[in-house]
């Protein structure tokens, strides 16, 4: 079925526009905006990996290589929309306006990391695979029920499509025409399992046929392709046309998490090749060079700006007050039950005795 789901591109790896109808979309302003957001999140990602190596945060899931998918989608959203990210989509969350400090706190084992800025409808990262897919169907349904034009975007990986929740969520959303965009970053691995062992189908987009909803396959490293198809899908959602499934072909350069070693199950020279051949940032650099507007000073400036921004957030994260044990007890119910009150009292007394 691959030929029924061709991979949509706006810009090829050399920075050439290959979809003439979107020529006007690719303006210098947009290229620079997209590029600098990708630099911001790549900077965060690299910093996080190094923080983990230094023991300053816990296990971390890097997304380097997938920046176009995350930036292109996040920039297509309206402020009032919902975002349902996974553990690998904090790049998207950051672009959509999540607090950098809180993103870092999440990776440092703090509940505070799941709290988005006021008014930002960013769900905590889904850890149990695919469980967010029905949530997004329901949250989007609620928007429709209320008569708003808000939509939701829901991220997940190729592996997630094997879970029952993927199926039940898409079925629900399709039956009730929930305004939701299901965005699959097909990085072709679920930890060590390649897509060929994950499914018998050549594409993920074709799974949309089971629900009679639009299924689109795109180059997930082409930030313009991502932006264009996400916008279209959001538009359909807002117009009452229901959900869309987007399969964005991409690649993570690194390991699944900092606790994983990709070289155990794949030849990492392939990742090195991908860096040269399909990198989402390089592509925009090529375009800028082709257009003769590539400005090394500007590139340096945004890199420094990103680094400064992230360093500041790291500082905030590291100077954050230590974990208060009361947090364990105080947020289980709105009003703690006697069981929890008693356990809290006893534990705090015990700590008091300690001190």
């Amino acid at each position: 079925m691959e030929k029924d789901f061709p991979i949509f591109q706006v810009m090829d790896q050399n920075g050439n526009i290959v979809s003439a109808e979107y020529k006007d979309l690719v303006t210098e302003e947009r290229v620079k905006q997209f590029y600098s957001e990708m630099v911001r999140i790549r900077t965060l990602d690299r910093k996080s990996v190094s923080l983990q190596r230094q023991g300053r945060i816990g296990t971390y899931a890097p997304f380097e290589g997938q920046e176009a998918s995350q930036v292109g989608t996040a920039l297509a959203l309206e402020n009032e929309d919902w975002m349902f990210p996974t553990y690998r989509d904090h790049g998207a969350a950051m672009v959509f306006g999540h607090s950098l400090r809180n993103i870092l706190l999440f990776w440092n084992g703090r509940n505070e990391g799941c709290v988005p800025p006021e008014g930002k409808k960013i769900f905590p990262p889904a850890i149990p695979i695919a469980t967010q897919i029905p949530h997004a169907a329901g949250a989007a349904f609620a928007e429709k029920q209320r008569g708003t034009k808000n939509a939701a975007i829901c991220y997940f990986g190729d592996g997630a499509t094997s879970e029952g929740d993927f199926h039940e969520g898409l079925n629900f959303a399709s039956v009730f025409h929930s305004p939701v965009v299901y965005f699959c970053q097909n990085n072709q691995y679920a930890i060590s399992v390649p897509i060929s062992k994950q499914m018998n189908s050549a594409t993920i987009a074709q799974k949309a046929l089971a629900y009679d909803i639009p299924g689109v396959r795109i180059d997930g490293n082409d930030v313009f392709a991502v932006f264009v198809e996400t916008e279209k899908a959001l538009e359909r959602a807002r117009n009452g046309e229901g959900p869309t499934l987007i399969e964005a072909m991409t690649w993570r350069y690194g390991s699944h998490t900092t606790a994983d070693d990709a070289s155990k199950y794949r030849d990492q020279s392939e990742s090195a090749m991908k860096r040269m051949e399909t990198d989402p940032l390089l592509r925009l650099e090529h375009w800028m060079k082709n257009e003769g507007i590539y400005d090394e000073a500007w590139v340096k400036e945004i890199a420094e700006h990103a680094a400064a921004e992230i360093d500041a957030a790291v500082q905030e994260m590291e100077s954050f007050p230590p974990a208060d044990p009361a947090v364990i007890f105080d947020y289980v119910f709105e009003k703690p039950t006697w069981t929890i009150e008693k356990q809290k009292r006893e534990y705090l007394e015990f700590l008091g005795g300690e001190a």
Partner: protein
Amino acid sequence: MKTAVQTKTLTLVQAITDGLDTMLGESKHVILLGEDIGKNGGVFRATDGLQEKYGEDRVIDTPLSEAGFVGAAIGMAVNGFRPVVEIQFLGFIYPAYEQIMTHASRLRMRTMGHFTVPMVIRAPYGAGVRAPEIHCDSTESLFTHMPGMKVVCPSNAYDAKGLMIAAIEDPDPVLFLEPMRSYRSSRDEVPEGKYTVEIGKGKKLTEGDDVTVIAWGAMIPVAMKAAEVMKQKGVDCEVLDLRTLYPIDKDLVIESVQKTGRTVILHEAHATGGTGSDLISLINDEAFLYQKAPAERVTGYDTPVPYFGFEDHYLPTPKRVAAAIEKVMKF
């Protein structure tokens, strides 16, 4: 609890319908979801007439996918609605277990109160109605061992409506267990309009100095019958209807056990891991020295709930309870 209001004579299942109706009428954010709850009014008719009254948008027939619609309801709850989802039988809640365990119950904690899940999950439970296998499970313990969930279980129409309204108004997720064996077995006077029965509070059904008998849901008539039998034999039972299984009404239980010193606990669920063990632990923790005899449990066995041809052997009966009461008396 209000007084001097109009009442209606309702069965337990009708009282549930009445509670749902009351809340659907009160807030457009209350929304029902489940399999066959619309035109069909639910397989037990608990939602009869509600779709006609409130529309297909508010009383929603879902696809046959418990994880899917519980998950979707979580999304709705997070986004301002108060979903009440029906699981057709408790034995079919397991496909939704992950959604309940890792999201519904934990979301408040995960986000320090930023996102919350004010959702009610209704589920008929228990044996004794000659239903096919899996339809008769009584696995409340799987949800009392799930921080962030409350679990309630009414035994009569009055409590059913009051607890339903309390559950819908609760800011946190509540599992609402419905004893299907008691759905239509008796009628009570039920106030019209809105009232609540507080979650976390049990109820003393009879006063007695000799033995505390603790039960809930469909086991209440069994406990009452046993108490009656024992009364003939001169043993005064204090029957407690727990009503809420998490959090247990500690004060009610402990006060009674401190008085009687003897306890019999009654439930349909398997002995190991059952709420009976939690009650024994509670007594151990809070009334150890008051005990005149070890607490006795009359429960389902450590076997699956059997096919209905065998269910009379499985289910606690007044006779088995009476025997346990005699045992603690004789200790």
